[in-house]
């Protein structure tokens, strides 16, 4: 049985096997992301309950583990209604645009080394990070469109606030990673991981987060910008319940609301994956030779496990911070972005460039 499968695989033309393996990888990747999405929601609800001394959802399935399925079914069968006053085309388009970038951004993230002969990245683009930033910016459209199409005051205010926040922190985010690429000298995300292999001082990982003060500062700016970009507390102004009743998605219900929700959590997963890749060594661990491409099947699986584990830790942090921090005021938010982080990121680029120039002895 296995032999005949093997024979069939070896008999495929390169184009066919490329198509086969890439689609398998895409489907598996996608399934993993959706599972992570579902259980991040459960995690969020349980963790927040514990923090607030409650129990949280624990009725559906063992330990409430089937809760996401129940939520999904409920969202799907709710009355699908479009209020009469909205602009129908844009109203439907907005939740779609919330989801599409989340799926597209999966493509360039290296989530493992090799498994058999396959590289564990969907599309090994040589402009990796540019693609990511390009796709991430598309997310703004869903919020702007939702705010505009709802034709209602709260969504309008929420949408316009949110878009100003997203574009502000997008600049801080884009500038914060430039020192990393000054060090790496390549836009491909696999090269970024390669630059973080090995150890320093004998045992500490050589990850960018602790490689030098400049890269540490870059991480700090990126982290804050990531919270702002995913609309998480302390920057969840678009959804400030007390002021805006819910922000850009008030007029949405049933499956359309679920799509916004899904897009938001998928973005959180993706930004965690980006942080792991850029600053925490991606799928590598510096010990036991785990920072080299796997030669065995087990090693390959282990690398994927390491990557997912790191992403999971970031997700826990996202959730935790949400229930620990108060919300920023809007003027503080804009001040922090434009008058603190952007000058800081620019200075960081400058210092890194001078440092590297001095190091190379020119």
């Amino acid at each position, binding site marked *: 049985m296995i032999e005949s499968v093997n024979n069939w695989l070896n008999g495929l033309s*390169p184009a066919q096997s*490329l198509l086969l393996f890439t689609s398998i990888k*895409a489907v598996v990747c996608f399934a993993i992301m959706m599972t992570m999405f579902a259980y991040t929601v459960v995690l969020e609800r349980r963790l927040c309950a514990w923090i607030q001394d409650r129990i949280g959802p624990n009725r559906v399935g063992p330990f409430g583990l089937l809760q996401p399925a129940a939520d999904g079914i409920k969202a*799907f069968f709710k*009355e*699908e209604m479009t*209020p*009469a*006053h909205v602009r129908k085309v844009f109203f*439907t388009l907005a939740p*779609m*645009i919330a989801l*599409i970038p989340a*799926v*597209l951004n*999966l*493509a360039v993230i290296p989530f493992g080394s090799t498994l058999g002969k396959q*590289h564990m990245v*969907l*599309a*090994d*683009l040589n402009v990796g*990070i*540019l693609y990511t*930033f390009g796709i991430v910016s598309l997310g703004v459209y869903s919020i702007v469109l939702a705010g505009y199409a*709802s*034709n*209602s*005051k*709260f969504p*309008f*205010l929420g949408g*316009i*606030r949110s878009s*100003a926040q997203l*574009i*502000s922190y*997008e600049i801080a985010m*884009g*500038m914060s990673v*430039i020192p990393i*690429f*000054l060090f790496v*000298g390549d836009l491909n995300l696999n090269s970024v991981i390669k630059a973080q292999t090995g150890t320093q001082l004998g045992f500490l990982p050589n990850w960018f987060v602790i490689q030098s003060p400049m890269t540490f500062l870059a991480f700090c700016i990126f982290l804050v910008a990531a919270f702002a970009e995913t609309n998480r507390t302390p920057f969840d102004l678009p959804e400030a319940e007390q002021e805006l*009743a819910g922000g850009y998605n008030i*007029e949405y219900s*049933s*499956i359309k609301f679920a*799509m916004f929700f899904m897009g938001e959590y998928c973005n959180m997963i993706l930004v965690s994956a980006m942080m792991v890749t850029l600053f925490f060594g991606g799928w590598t661990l510096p010990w036991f030779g785990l920072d080299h491409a796997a030669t065995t099947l087990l090693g390959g699986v282990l690398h994927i496990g390491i990557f997912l584990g790191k992403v999971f830790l970031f997700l826990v942090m996202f959730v935790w911070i949400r229930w620990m921090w108060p919300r920023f005021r*809007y*003027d503080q938010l804009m*001040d922090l972005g*434009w008058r603190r982080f*952007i*000058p800081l990121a*620019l200075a960081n*680029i*400058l210092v890194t*460039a001078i440092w590297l120039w001095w190091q190379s002895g*020119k």
Partner: protein
Amino acid sequence: MNTSDHPYLFILLLGLSAVAFALIPLGLAWLWAKKYSPKKENAIKNATYECGLESKGDAWIQFKSEYYLYAIIFLIFDVETIFLLPFAVSFTGLGVGAFISLMVFLFLLVSGLAWAWLKGVLTWK
């Protein structure tokens, strides 16, 4: 032919499946609603949501012009950030001239920011 030859072809395919992924739940829900749960509309349900108060006037309200200014500054800075990335990548291989031009470019960026700052555009009022 291996994966690295055609990454963009794959991106295109992924893009199409992403659109399909967004369309399928919407379509299925629409079909279900059409067949099994027809709309039960009424005037109150269709009204604009404003926390229970009756809606007054249009949703086309005036908003602060600061938002607009931020958007314009964003446009400039975003383009400039994108120009910085290729510079960063080829930086180590470049000579003194390139280093100085990078500094000049950064200076232009900073002076733009400083100008906006002094103009008070970046202060939220």
